[in-house]
């Protein structure tokens, strides 16, 4: 089935309203849908609940939404790269739910796969387990965790076609495939939109059924921690 190809990033995010829950792909700044985030900043939509592993940095990625006070609640695993995040949490302006990274990945996977909840050992015996259901299997304790879904999922892929099939590049894959499946509406920002039939079906990471619309864009691909080795 041919999917919507948005004429602009502004149009791509135009259905996202105040109080929406959105999931955003990426690990650090790698694999984030940069232009979709910039369009959300411009849209001035607010009171968002954002589910993403990290919350960008002060001047890029989801950090831009944060700076604009567009986020009410953040669900993620590591938010240590962002001073404005800290300020808003301490000031009571931002609610935060921290989830172990593997649990977050699996909660999103489960949500997209129609699994309401599952058990995982991560967090047993820690503050995260307080008030949570614990169950023992084969002598080991596990915590009950619920699946996550979103009104809108924003992902970034290296290549996509008009059928919504997506291929990711290297570690820019990260959370994107699960997030694509967990959104009621999934919008994909692709580096390259290719003609139908150009992608090898064997190489597709995200089958098109999960994607409602696509748009091609050019990314800056900012690097958080450039680490190089000296020339020999």
């Amino acid at each position, binding site marked *: 089935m041919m999917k919507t190809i948005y004429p602009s990033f502004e149009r791509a995010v135009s259905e996202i309203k105040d109080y929406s829950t959105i999931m955003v792909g990426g690990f650090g700044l790698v694999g984030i849908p940069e232009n979709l985030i910039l369009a959300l900043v411009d849209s001035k939509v607010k009171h968002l609940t954002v589910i993403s592993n990290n919350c960008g940095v002060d001047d890029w990625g989801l950090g831009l939404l944060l700076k604009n006070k567009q986020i009410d609640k953040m669900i993620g*695993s590591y938010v240590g790269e962002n001073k404005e995040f800290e300020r808003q949490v301490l000031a009571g302006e931002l609610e935060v739910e921290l989830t172990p*990274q593997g649990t977050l990945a699996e909660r999103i996977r489960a949500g997209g796969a129609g699994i309401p909840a599952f058990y995982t050992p991560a967090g047993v015996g820690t503050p995260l387990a307080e008030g949570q259901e614990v169950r023992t299997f084969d002598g080991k304790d596990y915590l009950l965790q619920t699946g996550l879904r979103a009104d809108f999922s924003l992902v970034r892929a290296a290549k996509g076609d008009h059928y919504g099939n997506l291929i990711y590049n*290297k*570690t820019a894959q990260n959370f994107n495939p699960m997030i694509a499946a967990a959104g009621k509406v999934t919008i994909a920002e692709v580096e390259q939109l290719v003609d139908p039939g150009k992608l090898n079906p064997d190489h597709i990471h995200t089958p098109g059924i999960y994607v409602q619309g696509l748009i091609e864009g050019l990314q800056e691909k900012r*690097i958080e921690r450039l680490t190089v080795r000296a020339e020999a």
Partner: protein
Amino acid sequence: MAVELDKAVVREKIARRAEQEIESGYYVNLGIGMPTMVANYIQEDKQVVLQSENGLLGIGRSPYEEEVDPDLINAGKETVTASVGAAYCSSAESFAMIRGEHLDLAILGGMEVSEQGDLANWMIPGKMIKGMGGAMDIVHGAKKIVIIMDHVNKHGEPKILKQCQLPLTGQGVVDRIITDRAVIDVTETGLELIEVSEGWTVEEIKQSTEAELHVHPNVWEASF
């Protein structure tokens, strides 16, 4: 105090001792910070695959300037290369590998370890909570968990305690502790001192450890 070494020297010493935990044929996850340094000392005759929880099985060396790919980072968000034979995967797949006990070893940093093998390494009450990242999953996944850290904190107080004071990352998850002063195993009967670093005595290790230490009958002194 027996020896006062420069911080960088201490870190290298711990990293080199931690490298000895890695056997040829192992799949290994190295935590962010000092554990990442262990990779620099892996002996060339060992066949080792390093896993990065952001979706890379087979971390290679750091890239030369012209090789830098912004889409290729490790879990510490540093640019890396992929080793020969590497595979990329999603975060869900990556943690399935971890949770499914497919990794042989994880080497992680620590703030406190208790005599029951509890680990605290993710938050200090009153300070900004940055998040646990993948640590809470990894401590339940790898077949062996080795914690590397300074033996005492910056105030000279023990970090190996009867009970952790900080919020836990995992309960009863640590197998071995490697510090700048000693190697200590977590056993069913408590902590066992198995190695003492050069320049330290068994008595000094006991004094700088709050938890009760059983000294292995063949404790290896000046082992590293």
